[in-house]
């Protein structure tokens, strides 16, 4: 047996060792289907490269943040304590 025949025989046997029986293929396909179903029940997978959800999330953060800051600023501006706090000190009249 020459080198080439030896190699071919070895590879043929190795390949035969990796042959999948129909019953094993059915079992593997069943497990795959079960896994896909489980993934689907957990919710749709979202690709890491999707841009729209990213923009939507950040848009929501910015809008809600701006509303929050506006409410705080407005309440501070209307607050009498705040008005007093930022008012210039009253002039002290001398007794003499």
């Amino acid at each position: 047996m020459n080198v080439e025949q030896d190699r071919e025989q070895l590879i043929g046997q190795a390949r035969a060792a990796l042959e999948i029986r129909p019953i094993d293929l059915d079992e593997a396909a069943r497990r795959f289907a079960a896994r896909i179903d489980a993934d689907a029940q957990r919710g749709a997978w979202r690709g890491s490269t999707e841009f729209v959800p990213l923009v939507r999330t950040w848009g929501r953060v910015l809008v809600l943040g701006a509303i929050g800051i506006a409410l705080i600023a407005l309440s501070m501006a209307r607050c009498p304590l705040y008005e007093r706090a930022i008012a210039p000190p009253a002039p002290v009249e001398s007794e003499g």
Partner: protein
Amino acid sequence: MTVLERPALVIAPPAALDVAAAFREHYPFVLRALVGLGVTPIDADDVAQEVFVVAHRRRGEFDPSRPARAWLYGIARGLARNRRRVRRDESLDVLSVGVSTEDPERAAAQSEALSLALRCLDALSTKLREVFVLTEFEGLTAPEVAELLELPVNTVYSRVRLGRERFDGALAKLRAQRGGKGP
């Protein structure tokens, strides 16, 4: 009829891959490819499942103008890189994936041959190994491998030749160490 109404010019949306059908058609190829890429046979089934799960998630990205096998191979290659494990010994029980026969003697011989072949493949660099496995184990032609790996055909021929040399050298060395026993 305007130009846009001509059927030949209507651009259809890209068809997503039917992964369930692809699984039945390509699972054996993916499994063998993973083993050839260095994933241990005991891990190969898990990684092969993972390949199709990734394919299912990314099915919208599939380019129908390319063979599904090439796309799946690309995914398998990426996952194999992460999951590659060093085989610690020649234990045959880890090779239970592929015992395809009811004849125990033949099964043992096949497992032994697989173990030996994997050891010989370890003598090849990743680039040589990929091309060698696709041509010698999968029986693909050089142009098919060139398309699959997006390589020039002459590079494939060159790597096949080098791969055979290294594989044969490793086989001769292992056989000599084992005292010339057959697979």
